[in-house]
């Protein structure tokens, strides 16, 4: 007890003990407090924003919403559907055989079949209409209305229908006067009326047919201008083939290049690691497209193809594997009885690591690091008796740490079935024409092979086909520009440079990674017209 009191008294003296604080102590404390206050203020700091920022964001959102499918907003998919339906309706009505090519007025009188041309002159059959000077008309490549039935060889339905209609019309009895002896004064007066009447539409032509209508004027009696509408149907002419034979099958093969990066809101570092591991590789696609001309210059392509998207996966990771082997060995000395209240004395010693490099036949290197710990436990019992125990136990623990280097190299392949829907514009004349095109490609996921980095263990890789939830259906934008060279009458070679990019995320919504594949490519092929 005495001993305890003394010790307590000794430390009681420390109660009022003061030590001089470091000179910079308060400065350091206040600095920390100050920065903490700054941080707290900054964390809740608000700054008024300008309205124009919302306008910019709203514009970006509108554009984003337009490019992504949603049931509730008008977007590119709806637009494409509308365009497609409109095109089909247009093709349906314009291609109807029951629809007359030309709706003639009763004014049709003269027909000129000449070689590969059919000329139609239109003159009012009103009795007040001045007679036609056949000679004058002949000068302008028009024939007499009494000319025999047309015999022009016509192959296309359009030509046949046109000529039949004209023949039928000519065979109907006409009340038109044949007297050509009208006095010149009267001619002039009445011809003015004629000119007015002719301004009315004499027939209605579809936009496709309008491309072939040429309106010109010619003079009758040297004073009056008549309007002459020529329906020109030329055979074996490239332009005609483009329209009347405006269908083709395009057989193509394309090589694509480019690298697409992953992104992730939830785990950007995983996206970065994957991006470092994945490198662009050449992808391919091939298939057959059906092309139809919507007008002289505009065409629509659709078809079916296979798109094999490729990426190279090359990833190197270093993993620590700790293999702990404990090899105890035990040495006992004499055991004594009457043991009570023992205590342990532990002495631990570190032994420096031993690093061994192991070269493998496949070129990889593993490092084997070995640490030794020796634990020397001494159990001692000291009692005021003659009996004592001294037990010396020695454990030798060996920690064997292996650094494993992994090299993963795979060729990732993602296969899609693709159905394009592409509108194009054609320009240029002759054998060489130029095209620009744009549209969408519907992609249906078929399979994926390859590797990606594991989401849970950055040292491991996973099978993308099993672990990455690919969207079953994607849409890509397509933009292209190319050339077409006519090899034969119905065979062309074409080449097109293009860019395509996913409009949507290639993976399902809840997946941690996002990616839109984007590629540049060159497409070449043969176009067979029919």
């Amino acid at each position, binding site marked *: 007890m005495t001993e305890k009191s003394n010790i307590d008294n000794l430390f009681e003296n420390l109660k009022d003990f003061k030590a001089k604080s470091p*000179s*910079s102590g*308060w*400065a*350091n404390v*206040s*600095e920390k*407090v*100050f*920065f903490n206050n*700054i*941080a707290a*203020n*900054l*964390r*809740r*700091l*608000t*700054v*008024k*924003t300008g309205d124009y*920022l*919302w306008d*910019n*964001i*709203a514009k*970006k*959102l509108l554009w*984003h*919403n337009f490019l992504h499918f*949603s049931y*509730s*907003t008008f977007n590119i998919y709806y637009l494409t559907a509308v365009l497609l339906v409109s095109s089909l309706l247009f093709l349906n009505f314009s291609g109807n055989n029951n629809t007359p090519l030309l709706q003639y007025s009763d004014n049709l009188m003269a027909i000129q079949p000449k070689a590969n041309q059919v000329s139609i002159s239109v003159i009012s059959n009103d009795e007040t209409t001045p007679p036609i000077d056949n000679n004058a008309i002949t000068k302008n490549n028009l024939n007499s209305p009494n000319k025999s039935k047309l015999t022009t060889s016509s192959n296309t339905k359009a030509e046949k229908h046109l000529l039949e209609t004209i023949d039928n019309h000519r065979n109907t009895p006409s009340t038109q006067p044949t007297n050509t002896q009208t006095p010149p004064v009267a001619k002039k007066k009445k011809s003015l009326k004629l000119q007015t009447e002719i301004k009315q539409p004499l027939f209605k032509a579809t936009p496709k047919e309008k491309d072939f209508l040429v309106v010109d004027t010619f003079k009758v009696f040297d004073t009056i201008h008549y309007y002459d509408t020529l329906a020109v149907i030329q055979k074996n002419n490239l332009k005609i083939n483009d329209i009347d034979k405006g269908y083709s099958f395009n057989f193509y093969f394309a090589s694509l290049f480019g690298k697409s990066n992953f992104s992730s*809101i*939830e785990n*950007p*570092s995983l996206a*970065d690691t994957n991006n470092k591991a994945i490198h662009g590789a050449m992808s391919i696609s091939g298939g057959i497209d059906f092309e139809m001309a919507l007008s002289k210059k505009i065409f629509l392509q659709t078809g079916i193809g296979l798109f094999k998207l490729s990426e190279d996966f090359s990833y190197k990771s270093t993993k620590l594997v700790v293999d702990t082997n404990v090899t105890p060995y035990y040495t006992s000395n004499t055991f004594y009885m009457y043991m009570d209240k023992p205590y342990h004395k532990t002495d631990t010693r570190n032994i420096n690591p031993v690093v061994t490099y192991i070269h493998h036949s496949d070129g990889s290197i593993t490092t084997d690091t070995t640490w030794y710990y020796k634990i020397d436990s001494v159990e001692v019992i000291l009692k005021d008796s003659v009996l004592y125990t001294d037990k010396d136990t020695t454990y030798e623990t060996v920690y064997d740490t292996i650094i494993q280097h992994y090299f993963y190299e795979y060729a990732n392949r993602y296969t899609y079935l693709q159905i394009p829907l592409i509108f194009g514009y054609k320009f240029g004349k002759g054998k060489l024409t130029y095209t620009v095109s744009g549209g969408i490609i519907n992609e249906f996921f078929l399979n994926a092979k390859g590797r990606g980095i594991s989401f849970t263990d950055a040292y491991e890789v996973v099978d993308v086909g099993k672990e990455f939830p690919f969207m079953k259906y994607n849409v890509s934008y397509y933009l292209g520009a190319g050339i077409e060279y006519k090899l034969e009458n119905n065979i062309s070679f074409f080449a097109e440079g293009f860019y395509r990019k996913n409009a949507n995320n290639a993976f399902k*919504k*809840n997946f941690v990674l996002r990616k839109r594949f984007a590629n540049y490519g060159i497409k070449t092929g043969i176009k067979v017209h029919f």
Partner: protein
Amino acid sequence: MDSLEKIIKGCQQNKMKYQKMLYDKFADLMFAICLRYAKTKEEAEDIFQDGFVKVFKHIGNYSFTGSFEGWIRKIFLNTAISHFRANSKNYFHAEYESMENYLPPAVAFEELKYTEEELLSVINELPEGYRLVFNLYAVEGFKHKEIAKLLDIDVNTSKTQLFRARQFLKARLIALSKQKRIKVDDRKK
């Protein structure tokens, strides 16, 4: 006033009305975050716009678990980091020598008062790497290990950047304080 949950659900259905409401609710707070990470107001506006577009793009992923403010803040933070990754190179390697001039004397900071605008302007003066690490550590409360992982740098680099950022800020704030005192003295005279 609609509840936050209703606004978020409206945004998830891509309704512009609710997007604007969400914007109004968080714009000022998020813009302040952008200003802290950006060097200029223009940069902050870029980050701000990109951040909100990302928020609306991915708001469908928000599952109403956890704080929405934390979620949106994280998106802005990642947007800011991505922005610097894209626009800056080697921003973690500012010359140490240049910092020597900024080493400040030990001063008791309780005497100094600064407005929030002054604090923001001083933070904006920080070199990019310092600013990023300081914001992440001091304001957002990240640990050095987390910062290192987030920015793909070494833990020690993060610590060094923070140390230098603090030295820089101290020096600038003391200088600012002196300027303010001189102005006050001039007015008294």
